[in-house]
């Protein structure tokens, strides 16, 4: 078996059409779209088209799409500028406990700058507790930010409901849709979203480019200063090839999404069913159904994630882990702890995220390898020994 890449949530292979569309803007149509001369016309038109392609994917207006360097910048901009803009109105931000670090770390930064943050917990399936969220709202709450889909356990949040709650209370609502955009249908109007972050390389576009959707009428101040690009909201020479590639990748990803997702869901469910049935002392993390069609996240008792990764890597199966040992910190992933997993179980967790082109044979091969790996690692584990001995008594 050749390499089986199942780490698509980390980054995706670029779509060929996206790469092809980018190529002319490196050498032939390399001019700056902000220039005034005739050579700027073609790149300017290309950027305009990309803005329309992106807007069309989420039921937005092209003028509501602002290109950035990626999901992290979009998240930082939405949170920092979103809070600073409303400082006189209130200084309270609400997020969930399982946000991506681009939101979580930004919220710590905001606390250092004198803002107040409430982090609302999620249930055992990784879905936000709406009653807790409502309780967290204060008169000075000015922004709520909850991710559309989680990057580790794939759980999909009730975004429309959260948006409605926020709007009923006159609070702005941002969602980090980095894992969701291009993977599940999104509609900013139906979802009651004011701001939405996404990143090109998560759906077959290039790295180093993303966007922030900002609803018309919200005067979000710039985060990057030094130029009049993006209607004066985001300074910096436009990444023309990047933006063009992202636009094409977005259009392709959002086309026939339902049919593609039916196939993805079948693959995912086959994977989940086999793992839970064939590997004892395993559990699925995240909601069984309210999850990304491409995501499966498991914990295997008595073993540790990084060693599983290494062992699978030797069989050319590539996945990722929420174990602390892979990050250099002592704590396993905040997402796994956030859904209530004890440390020792969280250490034995792996994330499998499936690219669209994956075949059933590849999934079966990966499960076979995973079974072998779990067995091997358990044969090394003193915890498994102790457990088996305690069962005999």
């Amino acid at each position, binding site marked *: 078996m050749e390499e089986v890449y199942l780490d698509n949530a980390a980054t995706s292979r670029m779509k060929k059409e996206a790469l092809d569309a980018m190529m002319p803007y490196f050498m032939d149509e390399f001019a700056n779209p902000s220039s005034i001369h005739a050579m700027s016309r073609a790149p300017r038109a290309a950027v305009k088209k990309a803005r329309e392609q992106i807007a069309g994917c989420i039921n937005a207006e092209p003028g509501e799409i602002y290109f950035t360097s990626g999901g992290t910048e979009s998240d930082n901009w939405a949170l920092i500028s979103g809070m600073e803009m409303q400082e006189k109105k209130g200084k309270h931000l609400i997020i969930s406990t399982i946000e991506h670090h681009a939101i979580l770390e930004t919220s710590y930064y905001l606390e250092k700058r004198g803002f107040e943050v409430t982090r609302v917990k999620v249930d055992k399936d990784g879905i936000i507790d709406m009653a807790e969220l409502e309780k967290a709202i204060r008169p000075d709450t000015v922004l709520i930010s909850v991710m559309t889909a989680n990057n580790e356990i794939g759980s999909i949040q009730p975004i429309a409901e959260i948006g409605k709650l926020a709007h009923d209370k006159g609070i702005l609502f941002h969602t980090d849709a980095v894992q969701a955009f291009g993977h599940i249908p999104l509609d900013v109007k139906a979802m009651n979203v004011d701001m939405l972050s996404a990143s090109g390389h998560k759906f077959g576009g290039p790295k180093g480019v993303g966007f922030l959707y900002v609803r018309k009428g919200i005067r979000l101040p710039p985060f990057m200063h030094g130029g009049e690009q993006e209607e004066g909201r985001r300074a910096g020479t436009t990444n023309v090839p990047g933006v063009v590639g992202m636009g094409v990748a977005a259009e392709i990803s959002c086309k026939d999404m339902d049919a593609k997702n039916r196939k993805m869901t079948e693959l995912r469910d086959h994977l989940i069913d086999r793992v839970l049935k064939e590997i004892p002392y395993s559990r699925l993390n995240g909601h069984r159904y309210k999850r990304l069609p491409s995501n499966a996240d498991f914990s295997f008792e*008595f*073993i*540790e994630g*990084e*060693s599983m*990764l*290494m*062992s699978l*890597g*030797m069989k050319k199966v590539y996945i990722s882990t929420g*174990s*602390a*040992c*892979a990050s*250099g910190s*002592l704590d*396993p992933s905040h997402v796994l702890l956030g859904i209530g997993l*004890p*440390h*020792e179980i969280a*250490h034995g967790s792996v994330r499998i995220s499936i690219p669209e082109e994956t075949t059933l044979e590849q999934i079966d091969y990966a499960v076979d390898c995973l079974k072998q790996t779990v067995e091997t690692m358990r*044969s*090394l*584990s*003193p*915890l*498994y*020994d102790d457990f088996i001995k305690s069962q005999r008594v």
Partner: protein
Amino acid sequence: MYDGEYSDKVIDHFTNPRNVGEIENPSGVGTVGNAKCGDIMRIFLDIDENGIIRDCKFKTFGCGAAVASSSMATEMVKGKSVQEAMEITNKAVMQALDGLPVVKIHCSLLAEEAIHAALWDYCQKTGTVIEGLKEPKADIND
């Protein structure tokens, strides 16, 4: 996987760990680390009447570096006297593995501690005194 960060020796000892298993009625056994932090090492020693380590086995819950460190440590103590085994440092284990990434140095420390814990158990059982051996902490993370 820490591709490129792990030496070939680490990869080798992870892929083909030496001396995995248990020893029935061991002369000494030691378990260190804790599951909360993601590493547990257990080392078994079989020591003859002259204080020479005849055999050594291990079981480890942990990352690739933890498995490789345990495997290397068991290789290093075999055939040594208990005094010599006591003097094996985590640095020596690391050197034998051609180095470890900085965030993984604690794995070699765990291996050193596991040997000490097993030797301590042997001393308790036999009344032997090994110069310089202190009662091990059950958990190096404490």
